């Protein structure tokens, strides 16, 4: 038997449910105060620094990190619940989300102590924003084709080259990026990349926004010209970033943000259909809810494995693969069903506005965080095919 794939039925412990209530109450207050509109997914004023600070003050950023760095030493499952509720409510999380999910854990693992003491507490307070510099022009998902050079100089490195598709670079205070410190070797084309902490908003970095088909500006081109990075900003092993990158990705790929990106259209469909649906609407909703429920069970299951200290690389890739395909299809299935919704449905306008945005968002969902083709390659490797 293959038997490599496990998705145990993990249940969230009682303390998670108490926390969930707290998060819901907090979000309800923010909505009442006009911080954001849960029915408007196209968050044009998505950078919400004050909201970010209030979330930090609640202790909901860096929740799993050691207390000496400002963390709460809470469980990964508790963090999971906070993420779910923020996502379902369409809360403006852009300012802190990447730092909380990925950058902080990377710093915890690989940064020198002085950097950790400086930066991690500020992430926990919701004060700073991170970007991730992976893709480059003409490399994209092929991480190991990155060319942007880090050349050794006195006390540090000089960076020259361009990163692209970098989400939030225009508002970010820091970026964790991989740069080429040596050429790849014949034996290992993954060799020669190093992870660096980059302080943004300095001379030598130019951030050029790229418009998206949703009408938003979210990702950017980032050009480095003789940009200096000091030695203590090297994260982990020089030339060995490829070893560091893979375990990090399980966190990026299996979370609730990988199947709830377009969830709002389902809520509004149920609202528009009303309490007594016809057979077609009922069946359509039932199938979508069954998918949603299954995705969530798989995602919670992977969260449980991460909590237990495992590295479920293949399972996380499966969640990302079918999760993003699901959230990509969802707006189109909802559109099918919405065709029969009464013109007089009270939320018709909201539903149409949401569908318009979700349909424009959908094409990117299978690309960000690892394209479907790359993920299927990872799954295939896990099955022993390569």
């Amino acid at each position, binding site marked *: 038997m*293959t038997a490599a794939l496990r998705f145990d039925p993990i249940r969230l412990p009682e303390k998670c449910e108490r926390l969930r209530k707290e998060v819901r109450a907090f979000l309800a207050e923010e909505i009442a105060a006009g911080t954001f509109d849960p029915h408007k997914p196209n968050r044009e004023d998505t950078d919400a620094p004050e909201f970010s600070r209030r979330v930090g003050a609640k202790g909901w950023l860096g929740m799993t990190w050691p207390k000496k760095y400002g963390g709460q030493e809470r469980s990964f499952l508790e963090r999971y619940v906070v993420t779910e509720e923020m996502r*379902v409510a369409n809360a403006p999380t852009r300012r802190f989300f990447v730092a909380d999910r990925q950058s902080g854990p990377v710093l915890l693992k690989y940064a020198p102590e002085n950097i950790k003491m400086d930066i991690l507490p500020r992430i926990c307070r919701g004060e700073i924003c991170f970007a991730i510099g992976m893709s480059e022009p003409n490399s994209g998902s092929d991480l190991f084709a990155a060319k942007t050079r880090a050349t050794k100089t006195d006390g540090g490195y000089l960076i020259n080259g361009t990163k692209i598709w970098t989400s939030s670079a225009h508002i970010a205070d820091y970026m964790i990026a991989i740069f080429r410190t040596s050429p790849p070797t014949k034996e290992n084309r993954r060799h020669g990349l190093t992870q660096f902490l980059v302080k943004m908003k300095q001379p030598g970095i130019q951030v050029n926004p790229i418009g998206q088909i949703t009408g938003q500006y979210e990702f950017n081109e980032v050009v480095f010209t003789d940009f200096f990075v000091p030695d203590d900003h090297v994260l982990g092993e020089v030339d060995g970033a490829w070893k560091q990158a893979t375990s990090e990705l399980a966190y990026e790929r299996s979370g609730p943000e990988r199947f709830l990106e377009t969830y709002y259209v389902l809520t509004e469909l149920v609202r528009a*259909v009303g309490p007594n649906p016809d057979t077609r609407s009922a069946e359509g909703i039932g199938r979508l*809810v069954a998918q949603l*429920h299954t995705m969530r*069970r*798989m995602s919670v299951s992977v969260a449980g494995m991460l909590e237990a200290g495992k590295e479920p690389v293949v399972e996380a890739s499966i969640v990302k693969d079918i999760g993003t395909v699901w959230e990509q299809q969802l707006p189109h299935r909802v559109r099918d069903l919405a065709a029969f919704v009464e013109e007089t449905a009270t939320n018709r306008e909201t539903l149409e506005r949401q569908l318009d945005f979700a349909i424009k968002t959908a094409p990117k969902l299978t690309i960000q965080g690892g394209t479907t083709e790359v993920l*299927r390659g990872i799954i295939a490797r896990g*099955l022993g*095919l390569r």
Partner: protein
Amino acid sequence: MAESDNIVVETAEKIFADLADPQTINNDRKDSWQEPLWQALSEAGLTLSWVPDDLGGSGASLADGFALLNAAGRFAVAVPLAETMLAGWLLAQAKITSPDGEMTVLPASPRDRITLDADGALSGRARGVPFAKAAKHFAVLAHGKDGVSIALVDASKGRIEAGLNVGYDHSDTVTLDKVQPVAIKPAAKGFDQTNLMLMGGVARSLQIAGALESMLDISVRYSNERVAFEKKISKFQAVQHNLARLAGESAAALAAATSAADAIASAKSFNDEVYLEAASAKIRCAEAAEKGGAIAHQVHGAIGFTMEHILHRYSLRALAWRDDFGSESHWAVELGKLVANRGADELWPLVASR
């Protein structure tokens, strides 16, 4: 659930490996494998695992029984194990002692009804009843004027029109015409036909998930053996991506089915959360059977389409199991109604309830 340290599952897997090897069964056109397999399962107490000791069973937990059904799915076992387990479980809901031998449960479709007349006789028709022809007894859920009753019926008292499902297993129409049961008692308060359908649906979900695990397994193995265009076909990216999708379908089915089983095993009643879990499992597993089975056949090419190959033992059964205890269409409509009725703002709290 694979690699179980569960003693019930270990016992079952050993019996399946010895007596229900798919290739041996496939080569045996006379069905002579059935009797020894049934004997072994029966002697090990597995067929009545959901029946308490004092009602003639072996008193395994619901969780262990579900794990056993998942293992049965991995071997595409085609004896009435799931059916007898379900029948024993149903009888136990009314504290009726289970007899020896093969049983099945009816009705097996949410659209069929058996009624209890004033004189204590049972009437009605149940379609698609798995293994009715092989059963010595039926466990029957019946509606009378005082509510729901559960009855044990001698199978020879029913009229059986034999049929075969898409997996070549017996799926029969049973007609009861004023049949006096061997035993009959009122069901526990709150127990109804929907509960029986959800329980049967989860049993089938676990079997489908098990069959998909095996389909993934044999498809991966075959792709590493079969050479075409001078390469193992596992080295072709298109084949790798198909198998990755099959792994996804298999994983989704297993996650949905085991979660639903866990929900039933740990719940005090069939509440909305259990309904969501059980209905979703049946819907998602049925969809996975369709998509996953198609990929497994695609990988195997023509050889997988032959009676000589074991693939059809899994693929056709997984497809057939979709139809028992409510198809995915049925449960999707019912789940959709439940969700719509609770209202839009209750959907996420329901999904995120555990």
